[in-house]
């Protein structure tokens, strides 16, 4: 059933495009071109953060920190492998991507931890970055409880990632 989602989505867009007499091919190419340049913008950050995370992991420090936090998350049923992802997710999008890639290299994407990590990546955002960019263009200095509420959303997302995977996929 889930394999119908993307093909159906593509077909709907194409039908709507033809219906509205859009140049579907030309628009596709121009949209893809914009994504290409946007993608190149994140490459330098991705290189920096994958180096940092790769070295951190190789030194054994990542395992050490995850091991310290593990007792806290264990009772929530949250997999230890996903702790680094929860730590970096609100701070950096490229960093989260790097950690996600590293998790999937260690465990199968169809394992419990692999599935939870996938749901986490799909359902949470780079909180601090978003807050900084959005308030950055206004004159607002005092953002009140915006960080607290956004982090509430993130933490709820992390806990529920593990819970929904456990309930729906097993």
């Amino acid at each position: 059933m889930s394999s119908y989602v993307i093909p159906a989505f593509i077909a709907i867009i194409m039908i709507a495009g033809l219906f509205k007499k859009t140049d579907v091919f030309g628009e596709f190419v121009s949209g893809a071109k914009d994504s290409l340049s946007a993608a190149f913008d994140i490459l330098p950050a991705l290189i920096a953060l994958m180096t940092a995370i790769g070295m951190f992991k190789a030194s054994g420090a990542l395992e050490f920190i995850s091991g310290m936090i593990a007792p806290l998350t264990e009772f929530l049923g949250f997999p230890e492998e996903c702790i680094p992802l929860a730590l970096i997710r609100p701070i950096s999008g490229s960093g989260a991507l790097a950690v996600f890639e590293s998790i999937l290299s260690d465990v199968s994407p169809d394992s419990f931890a692999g599935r939870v990590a996938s749901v986490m990546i799909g359902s949470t955002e780079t909180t601090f970055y978003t807050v900084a960019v959005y308030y950055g263009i206004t004159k607002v200095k005092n953002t009140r409880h915006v960080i607290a509420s956004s982090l509430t959303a993130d933490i709820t997302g992390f806990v529920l990632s593990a819970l929904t995977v456990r309930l729906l996929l097993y």
Partner: protein
Amino acid sequence: MLKWIFAVMLITSVGFGAATGNMDKVCNSALNSCVEAVDLFLYLLGGMCMWGGLMRVAEKAKLTDRLSELFRPFLKHIFKGLDLNGKAFHAVCMNITANLLGLGNAATPLGLEAMRRLEQEERPGDTTSRNMIMFVVLNTASITIIPATAASLRVRHGSAAPMEILPCVLITSACALAAGLISASALDASGRRKKK
């Protein structure tokens, strides 16, 4: 913030590697991680361009406008006291729709536009308005219908069913969003009471 995380991670790696005798692994990683980053980037590039292209077609076919109309009734309950025919509310609706479709490139400029309009319409001065908080919380809790990046990386690592996570993603993001909005609304009310 990233400046500190980056430096601390690199320095700790070297110190920790020396202490645990993992220095050869750390050295390999220092040389190889950048290659892996480019490899990952190239792998994701195709998917990013494919979705970018597809979503551009959806935008030109007015599918995004239609969807944005669908969200208005829901969004008007979240943004209190905002002119529903004003430019701020329009930008808010367009930004939320772009986010929902995973149009990261389009969502950010629309979001900045929405923040600017909200500031013009509400004149909050130094302290953020309630609607600005609601808007930012809506943006920090990701609401995407198709988790494309997660799915392509799952394919890369040999997943048998890359999209099987979809129901979990939808439920999780909806609940996370609800938690964020409820806490924002509750903290706003308690903040106001304290002021009085």
